[in-house]
Every structure is written in structure tokens, then in C-alpha cells.
């Protein structure tokens, strides 16, 4: 554990936590542009967070302590996820503590807690949202793991930093298995972040909502933390995508100058990624909820195929 590792670790964590709402704002803004709307500006999520933090919290009479703990747990675990996904540099001192499998574990942790919180009040919507979230997660979690495994097979390591370093810095090589992984990953990203073909982040339509149904009972600072955590989750997912599929430009070990270069490259990639996401959400239609298992099942099988192709082609 060197000073540089700790510095990049903290820098990346701080950047992620602070910039995450900006990415969400950018995606929403792009979506507005694509739909011929003016949009609320990319800083809108910050305004929303600020407003929510200043409000008085109202929670249901029969809420248990678990209900009040969950927003913090969610926020904490998403910070952890943001810390171990190499987005800025591959020299992260904390990455030894949690590898790719643990990363999936963190997402599972967050998912289970938010589902439990949704069931805590005992409303019809909460239970419905929890059930749907678990259904999506039940297939998305293995799919994500398969994607990460495909990358791990290439680098012979489940350590995320090790994997990204292999993909980014060793001599250029095409990995066909990553083509499958990329498609699977994109589907997982959309599903896990409550984006359009599976869930609609902008709607409170009872019959279709998943994520929103779970957090209906939250207000004020609890809601703010959850919203913030979800934006960090989106950021973490986009970072995983960048790290696995377009890792070039990430800072090398012990390279101060590298970070200075890596930051603008990362921001450019995030902007492009956010725009792509908005584009997908604009051209696709929301699926029926019964189609979601099929969608996720396809993602999972694409992930498995990615692993297989790795063996087929020996690369």
C-alpha cells in the first residue's frame, strides 16, 4: 500500500461520489434533447438533492429501524462499489480487499436491503416493487458475473485492477469474447439501473414501476441518499463498462501525469457513454414486465456465450 495508491483511491472515490449526479443529469439532458425538449439542465440532480436534504423527513408509523438504516447502507455500499471499480487509475489500494465477485456481492447487498426496506412498511406497492427488483436482480446478477468472468479469464485474475490493467496496457489485442460480454453488459446495465426497456425512471405508473415502487415511502434526506446512491450506481456501472470495453487512457501505476491525462479522457468517455445511454432509452420502448425475465435471461446467456467463445477461440 503506497501513498500513491491511497491518493488515487481517495481521489477516485471523491470524484465518483461528487460527479455521479452530474452523469445522471447529463443522461437526462441528452434524453430531453433527443426528445426535442429543453431539459432541466445537467445540474438538476444536485438541486433535487439539496432540496430533499433540507426537507423534514416523514416516515410511516410502522417503519422499523431497518427502514431508516437502509438509505445509509445503500449509500455506503455504493461508495464502496465506486471505490473498487477502476475508472481513473488502476493503482487503487483498496482493490485488494474486494475483487470482481465481491463487486457483484456489493450490488447484491444493496439490492437485498432496498427490497427489504420496500417490504418494511407493508404497502402493496412496496412488496410489488421488491418482488420485481429481486426478479430482475436474480437474472442480472449472474449475467454481470459472467461478463466479469469473461474479462477475468483473459487477465487470469478476478481482481478488477489487474483485469483492467491487462486490457488497457499490455499490447493491443482483440478479444472476440468481449463482444458478447459487451452486449450482455449493456443489457444488465439497463436493467440494473432501472433504465428503459425494463423500468422507467421517469414514471410513477403503478403497473410498470420497479425502482420507484420500492422507494415510494421514503422522503427527504433518506430519499436524497437513495437517489444519490442510485446515481453512484449508474456511474459505477458506466465505469465498469468503460473499464472493460474501452479502457485505454486509464492512468498507470504510480504515474502522476497519467492521472492528469486520465481525467479528461474519463470525462469524455462518460459523456459519450451517457449520450449512448440516452439514445438507447429514446429509441427503445418500455417492455412489459413479463418480458423482463426473458430480457435478462438473454443477457445471462450472452454472458455465458462470452465465456464459451473465450474457450472456443482460445483468446
Amino acid at each position: 500500500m503506497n501513498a500513491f495508491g491511497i491518493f488515487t483511491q481517495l481521489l477516485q472515490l471523491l470524484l465518483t461520489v461528487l460527479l455521479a449526479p452530474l452523469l445522471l443529469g447529463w443522461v437526462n439532458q441528452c434524453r430531453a434533447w433527443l426528445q426535442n425538449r429543453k431539459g432541466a439542465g445537467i445540474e438538476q440532480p444536485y438541486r433535487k438533492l439539496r432540496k430533499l436534504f433540507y426537507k423534514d423527513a416523514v416516515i410511516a408509523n410502522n417503519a422499523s429501524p431497518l427502514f431508516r438504516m437502509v438509505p445509509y447502507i445503500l449509500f455506503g455500499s455504493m461508495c464502496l462499489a465506486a471505490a473498487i471499480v477502476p475508472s481513473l487509475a488502476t493503482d487503487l489500494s483498496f482493490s485488494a480487499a474486494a475483487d470482481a465477485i465481491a463487486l457483484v456481492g456489493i450490488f447484491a447487498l444493496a439490492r437485498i436491503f432496498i427490497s427489504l426496506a420496500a417490504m418494511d412498511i407493508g404497502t402493496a406497492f412496496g412488496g410489488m416493487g421488491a418482488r420485481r427488483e429481486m426478479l430482475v436482480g436474480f437474472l442480472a446478477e449472474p449475467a454481470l458475473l459472467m461478463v466479469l468472468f469473461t474479462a477475468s479469464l483473459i487477465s487470469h485474475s478476478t481482481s478488477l485492477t489487474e483485469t483492467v490493467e491487462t486490457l488497457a496496457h499490455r499490447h493491443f489485442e482483440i478479444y472476440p469474447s468481449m463482444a458478447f460480454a459487451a452486449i450482455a453488459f449493456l443489457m444488465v446495465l439497463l436493467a440494473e439501473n432501472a433504465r428503459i426497456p425494463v423500468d422507467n425512471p421517469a414514471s410513477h405508473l403503478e403497473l410498470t414501476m420497479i425502482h420507484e415502487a420500492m422507494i415510494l415511502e421514503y422522503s427527504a434526506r433518506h430519499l436524497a441518499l437513495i437517489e444519490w446512491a442510485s446515481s453512484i450506481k449508474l456511474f459505477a456501472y458506466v465505469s465498469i463498462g468503460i473499464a472493460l470495453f474501452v479502457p485505454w487512457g486509464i492512468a498507470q501505476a504510480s504515474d502522476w501525469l497519467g492521472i492528469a491525462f486520465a481525467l479528461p479522457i474519463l470525462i469524455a468517455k462518460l459523456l459519450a457513454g451517457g449520450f449512448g445511454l440516452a439514445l438507447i432509452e429514446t429509441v427503445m420502448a418500455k417492455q412489459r414486465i413479463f418480458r423482463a425475465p426473458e430480457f435478462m435471461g438473454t443477457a445471462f446467456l450472452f454472458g455465458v456465450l462470452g465465456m464459451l467463445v473465450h474457450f472456443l477461440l482460445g483468446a
Partner: protein
Amino acid sequence: MSISSQFINLLASILLLLAFAMLSQRRIKSLIRLFMVQGMTLVVSTIVIAVTTNQSHLYSSALLTFALKVVILPLILYRLIKRLNVEWDVETLLNIPSTMLVGIAIVIVSFNLALPISHLAGTITRSTIGIAMACVLLSLLMMITRSKAISQVIGFLSMENSLFFAATSTTYGMPMVVELGVALDVLVGVLILGVFFFQIREKFESLDLKHLEKAEGE
């Protein structure tokens, strides 16, 4: 591995990806689009092989593929579905994940079947034989799971594409005569099938092949 063979591997896996995408695609129009992309992938792979191995006849083969599979056949098919008015038809499929599961089993089996052949082949792209074989079988699987006549034809055409890929990647292409012959066959085949479609529709007012089952006894 040289960069060109890596590139061929990438194209091979794109072909596999397309085969799976076709397997799980419900819309006929999107199927045709996928078929077009498949054709384009073939063209690129042929050109890459041509460049790396200096086989000049592969250039003309690529040109032929482009003309036939990226331009003419999709155009014919588009016109067909437009005139048959099935442009937006959606097929009811078996459960997609289970079809894909069968597909994965096919990939594993066909790769292992192709293993001895690929050990023999000395070309730069020998590991793609398994994939080409898997694509052939997947196209066949697609034909099995479909009930509409047009999607079956697309399945047939994509099978031909996979065979073509197998040929170019293992033996650097077939003799030009054979290739021309096959191309002509495919073209004529599609034209005749197009006529068939109209006949079938006129008779049964649908393109669903289950009507043909009943017709057997007549």
C-alpha cells in the same frame, strides 16, 4: 496471434452473435436487417483474408458476396414482405432463453466436433471452423423454431452464409465457378420461393407453415 487472425476471430464471433440474435429476434424486418449485417461481416472477413493471404480471387468473391447478400437479397426480401404486407409481423416464438440454451449446447458440441478438423487445417483461421459449424447448426435451429415461411427462408440463407464463411476461413475460398454457381442458386432459390409465398398466401391467406401440414392429405 497476428492482428489479422485476431480480426478474423472477432468477425467469427460477430457471426455467432448474429446467429444468436437471429434466433431470438421476433420481427421479420429486423431479421432481414440482421441478415444484411451478416452479409456485411462476411464481406469484411473475405477482404481481410484476401489482404493477409494475397489471394486475389477472394476480392471478386467479396464483391460478389456484397452484391448478392448485402444488396440484392435483402432488397428482394424487403420488397417481398412489403408486398405480402407482413412487414410488421411478429412471430410467436418458443421461450427465447430455452432456445438459446439449446443454442449454447450446439456451440459446445459443434466446437468439439470441429476440433479434429481444425487441428488438421493449416490456415491462419483454423479456430473459426468450430464457430462456422455452430453457425450452420444455429441457422438450422432457427429454421426449426420458426413457423413463418419468410423467416425460414432467412434461416436457410444464413445457413448458406455460414457455409461460405467456413469455406473462406478453412480453404481460402472455393473455386470461382463453384461460388458463382452457389450464388446463382441462392438467387434463383429466393426468387422461386418468393413466388411460392404468394401462392401459399393465396391458398391459405397466411404464411404460417402449419397450414401446409393440413394440406398434405389433399
